[in-house]
Every structure is written in C-alpha cells, then in structure tokens.
C-alpha cells in the first residue's frame, strides 16, 4: 500500500518564471526507506516542504494514507538539516514539544513518553541537560527522537547528517537503519551524498533534471539488515558510480 502519493504536483517559487516541480507524480510504499538524491538547489527540499504543508502546491494533489494532506494534521514528522533544538529548553523539554502542541497528554504522561524516546535513541540521563552540552551526533539523535514523538508513520529527514563529521555520520547511518527496522516507519531521506543514499535506501529516488518532472527510481541490490561491507560489493560500487555519473552530468549543464 502506498503511504505517500504525489499526483501531478507542480510548484513555482514566487519571483521565478518556471515551475521548479513540474507535474511530478510518484508514490512511496508504506514501510520503505528511500533516499532522494540530487544536486544542490534542484528542488528536493521543495518536495518535502510541500509534503509537510509549509508550501502549497500550485496544482496537483498530495495524499498521505489515501487522504489529501489538506484534510489532516500530524501525518508526517519533519526533521530539518539543523537539529533546531531550542537552546532555552532542556533536551527533555525539547522532545516534549510535539506532544505539547498536539495536546491531550498530562505532564506526567509526556514525561514518560519523552523518557522512553530518550532511552530508545540511547540518550538516557540526558533529559535535564541543555542542548549545548551535547555533541553533534547526540543532538541529531535527540532531534530524531523529537521527530519520532510526532507519532507519524511518515518521516521526512532533510539531510540530517550532512553537518556531522565523517565517522559520526557513518555510525549515525547505521543507527538510523536500526531505528527504522525497529519502528517500521516509512522514511524519506534527502541527501546529496551518493554513498549515504546507496547505503540507506531500499531504492534511490534520483533527481535527474531540474525542473523536476520525475524521480528516477533506482533499486539498490542489497538486503536489510546491512553493514557497511555491502558497499564494497561490485553491484553496489557500480550503482554508486552510475549515480555519481548521472548527477555530474547535471552539474555540467
């Protein structure tokens, strides 16, 4: 069953004379993990910002769980590139934000859910710390836990690891796959890092041209659970080179 569907969606930024998203249709199966990969400024983030309702499409319909997004709330959890932990709130208070806004839970219930979420991402004991006491990787895990607490099945992760150093990034990637397998969420993950896309995705959705007419679905020849060793498999290496090739062509033109 497809969880997210784009149907002939177009979007034009004010002040531009073309549609950056032009009649785009695609769908995402429930429980899948896709990376959307494309060069900088190609409009990948625009797809996310329409899905989470921050931008209104010029035309077309976006459905989540079969219903147009205009008719529902709390259908997706969005995690931007910056962790955006509020510096005046403790980690626990930051995680409680989606619950506070959604309402309907007592303070004790919220606290319980936050503690569970923190334990889940390996940040037990960080509830009363301030964000600036945490390392970059820990902050991203806290931000991910906050995204999980939106309670949505669809998670939109917009380059969440791109600001991390290489070693932290690869361990966060492994960690994220673990979380995905554990919680059976549907994850869309924007990146411009080809290796990251290949390692994480069931199939890669490549942006091959701007404006975006289609997303080219490229299946990844590897099964879950994965370790980084699978990246050395000849099929994976070939896929990586293919993708790099496709993206480089775009940069040149």
């Amino acid at each position: 069953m497809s969880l997210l569907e784009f149907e002939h969606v177009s979007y034009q930024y004010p002040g531009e004379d073309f549609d950056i998203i032009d009649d785009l249709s695609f769908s995402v199966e429930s429980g899948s993990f896709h990376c959307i990969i494309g060069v900088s400024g190609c409009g990948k983030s625009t797809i996310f910002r329409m899905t989470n309702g921050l931008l209104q499409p010029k035309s077309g319909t976006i459905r989540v769980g079969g219903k147009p997004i205009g008719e529902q709330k709390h259908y997706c959890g969005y995690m931007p590139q910056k962790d955006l932990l509020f510096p005046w709130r403790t980690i626990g208070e930051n995680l409680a934000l989606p619950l506070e806004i959604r309402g309907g839970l007592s303070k004790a219930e919220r606290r319980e859910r936050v503690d569970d979420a923190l334990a889940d991402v390996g940040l037990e004991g960080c509830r009363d710390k301030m964000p600036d006491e945490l390392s970059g990787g820990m902050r991203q895990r806290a931000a991910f836990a906050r995204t999980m607490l939106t309670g949505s099945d669809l998670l939109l992760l917009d380059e969440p690891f791109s600001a991390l150093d290489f070693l932290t990034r690869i361990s966060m990637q492994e960690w994220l796959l673990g979380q995905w397998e554990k919680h059976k969420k549907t994850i869309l993950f924007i990146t411009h890092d080809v290796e990251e896309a290949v390692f994480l995705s069931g199939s890669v959705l490549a942006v091959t041209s701007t404006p975006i007419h289609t997303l080219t679905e490229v299946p990844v020849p590897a099964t879950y659970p994965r370790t980084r060793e699978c990246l050395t498999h000849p099929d994976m290496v070939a896929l990586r080179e293919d993708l790099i090739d496709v993206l480089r062509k775009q940069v040149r033109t």
Partner: protein
Amino acid sequence: MKQANRGNLPALIFLFVLLLLWQLGAMEVNAAYILPTPIQILQRLWELRLPLFTVHLPATMLVTGVGLLISLALGLGLAVVMDWSPLLQKCLYPVVVASQTIPTTAIAPLFVLWFGYGIWSKVLVTVLITFFPITITVYDGLRAAKTEMAELLLTYGATKRDIFWKIKVPCALPYFFSAIKMAVPMSVIGAAIGEWLGAQSGLGYFSRRMMTQLDGAGVFAPIVLLSAAAMLAVAVVGLIERKAVKWRGES
C-alpha cells in the same frame, strides 16, 4: 570568575584615583557652592539623611516605579502588537520614533499644567523617556525568533499562539532584560527631570531647592543618592536575569 574578580581591583583603583582628582581639583578651586568635594557631598548626604531618605527618596522611587511599570506595559504591548501585525507595525513604528524627537524638558512644564503638581506629570515624563527603549528592544527580540524554528513547530501543527509562547517569548527574554537595564536609569532620570520642573517633593525637587540656596554639596547629595538607587536596581535586575535566562548568546 577568578578572572573577573582580578579585574575588580584595577577598576576600584581607577575609581579611587578619579575621586581623588576630583577632591584635589575641588580643593584647589575652593568654591563649594560651584564645585563641592566628594567628602563634602558625603557629609551633606549624612546631614540631610532624614528628609532625603524619608521624604524625597520614596517620592522619587514612587514616580520611577509607577513610570517603569506603565512603560513596561506600554512597551511590551506595542512590541507584541507590532510583531503580530505588519500593518500596525507600519502605523505605529513612526509614531513611536517621533515621540522620541520631542524635547522632553521643553514640553514637561506643559505636563505640569495638564496634570498638576502630583505624581502623574512626572510619571508621564518618565514614561515618555522609558517606553521607547523597551518597545524597540523587545520588538527586535520578537523579530529575532528564527523562522526555521517556527516552521518546525508548524509541521507539528502549531498555531500562531503556540509559536508566540514557545519561540517568540523565550527568544525575546534576553532582549527584555537588556531593555529593563536600559530603562531603569532612564526612568530615574525621567523622574528627576519631572521633579525639577515642578514638584513638592522628590530628589530632583530637593536638588533644585539646594541650587537656589547656592548649596553645591546639597545639589550633589540627592544626585549621588539617585545614582546609587539606579545602580542598585540594575544590579537586582541583573540577578533576576541570571536566574531567568540561562542561554544568552547561544546560536
């Protein structure tokens, strides 16, 4: 902390040297009705302690306090309204700025005609001087809230109200404290100006009366008291700030 303490000693020595220069200079001039020495001022302060501390200091503090409260209410109100509606911002901002181009000392005698010799004419002077920094600073603070954070909350389904309380208010809090720290000394000045121009009590009034008696030390004594009161108030605000704002400067 140690570093800061080490900085205190040179500062104290510097202050002491300044006072010493003043003392020597005033002794040289030897005309206490124009330029009293610091020691003469302290002596006068002690001699006049009864009327100063029981009548005039409370009177001035009342004007300052009432003026500050009204300024806070007005300044915060204007800041919130201007942040909330771009249209009102366009209407109000020029008026707020224009209010500061009024030479307060020139127009204050009119306030006495309008509101009499009671506290309200002085309160008005105080408010006119004080509400401006509060309005502008708090408004800037509300504007400083990051749109990315607001967008994140919007994806959680937040209302405008949620965004105001959960992002804008915490963002504006450090600005708010800066505003108060500016406003406190200004409100003291405002009260003193008001009293200078027409009053029956207060440190500004007392200072003026001493002037007519050519009592130089008597002019300075209430002013010293006024400065001390303002510095004390700013220090108290600083303490409250340290409790309330734990994250100034981050990000």
